[in-house]
């Protein structure tokens, strides 16, 4: 887990090279180069999409959010300043912002629907709400290794975390972001990031303990 110096050196070089490439692309995009725009799309959206999928859960919503992110990139490419952080951090920040807006819109829709139908299928908070059917129903062979119960419980517990807690966990664990990067992405102070992460872990532990995981 703790990287050797040589390894770190190698990784740094790769990272620097990829930042250079990204910067080059952004320069071209700022000059309305659609080929560069396409390269950026195929190069960077797999990670952005994966992160958004964790937040938004539904492919259609992620399609829309990535769309919003890319349009923002097209219009604001000239404003990207590498001195402020990595390109991926900048992109994650936009993605986080667009994702939150879509979630807010969806929440408003759901409120209206609930109001109209006077019933909500997941009011007690015990069911993971808004999860794609394919997510739960899938016959995923990979989920046997750790025991699929754990996978389902983790999923359930993650669902019950607040959005802020879930976001910081995703960014730290699945996207390997530093706490400074998470602060930039979520637009909050570094101490808040650390505190959120701490409470998110604690909350996860409590939830899983309630399901008999000691």
């Amino acid at each position: 887990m703790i990287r050797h110096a040589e390894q770190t050196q190698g990784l740094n070089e790769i990272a620097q090279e990829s930042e250079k490439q990204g910067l080059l692309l952004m320069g071209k995009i700022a000059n309305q180069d659609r080929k560069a725009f396409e390269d950026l799309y195929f190069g960077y959206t797999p990670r952005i999409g994966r992160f958004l999928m964790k937040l938004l859960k539904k492919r259609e919503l992620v399609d829309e959010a990535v769309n919003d992110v890319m349009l923002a990139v097209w219009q604001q490419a000239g404003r990207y300043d590498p001195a402020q952080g990595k390109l991926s951090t900048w992109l994650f920040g936009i993605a986080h912002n667009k994702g939150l807006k879509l979630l807010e819109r969806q929440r408003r829709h759901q409120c209206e629907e609930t109001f109209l139908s006077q019933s909500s299928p997941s009011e007690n908070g015990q069911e993971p709400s808004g999860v794609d059917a394919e997510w739960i129903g899938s016959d995923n062979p990979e989920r046997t290794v750790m025991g699929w119960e754990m996978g389902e419980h983790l999923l359930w517990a993650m669902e019950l975390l607040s959005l802020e807690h879930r976001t910081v966990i995703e960014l730290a664990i699945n996207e390997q972001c530093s706490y400074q990067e998470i602060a930039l992405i979520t637009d909050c102070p570094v101490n808040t990031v650390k505190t959120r992460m701490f409470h998110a872990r604690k909350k996860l532990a409590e939830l899983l303990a309630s399901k008999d995981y000691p």
Partner: protein
Amino acid sequence: MNLKNSDITIPVALGSFFPQNLEESALMNRKADDGHGIVAELLPWYVNGTLGSKEQEWVAGHLADCPKCRVELEQYQQLSSVISNNTETPDWQPSPAHFGQILSALDAEENGVIRNVAVVKKPSFLGQCADWLQAQAKPLVWALALETIVLAALVLFVVLPRLDQQTSGQTVFQTLSDAHAPTVAGLPRVHIVFADDIMIGDLRLLLVSVNARLVDGPSKLGVYTVELATVGNPDATALAIATLRKHSKVKLAEPVHP
């Protein structure tokens, strides 16, 4: 997903997953606790290798001397590996089709669709749409919705003449999915809206492939009219319209009702 305790088999190896001493090393006591609290706070970034070299060294030094924090490190590593190995979330992948949608939204935005809609004189509904759209603070967020609305508005515009023709006392409901309505006298006509970046060569190829020719357009809304050489053959007309609709540079293709 209904979770009942009776359904659960607890894997033994997972027993020590979660930090039991997290509470006692709480952040509030960080000064009094010889650094355990700070380590607890920094562990996630120590584990993902993103701490600065000073912090990294400091945490490593503390861990070397502190069995309590080493236990916590181990527990966090396990949690972290379960979360990163969690394959329950379906993946999202970029695709040429999705990128195509992005380009269309971008074109719509750059070609000032909002202004075009506002130019239309006749139906006040369109004016209202435009006003509403312009009232939105962030056109960016609405780019996709905007395109959908503009297309919907075009559809309305295209069917309006038909509605105008309805005789009093006899309401005619003509749905847009009616695939064909060939004229008796003339050739069947289709209203088409092309993507803005369609090349003239592609346009010609497309028209030749469905045996159609341009007879009118563009209107103020950018609608072209083409004539199909499929008179008296509804199946061929439907097929031609389907081919037009399938083309990536065709935004809308609707039969013109006589």
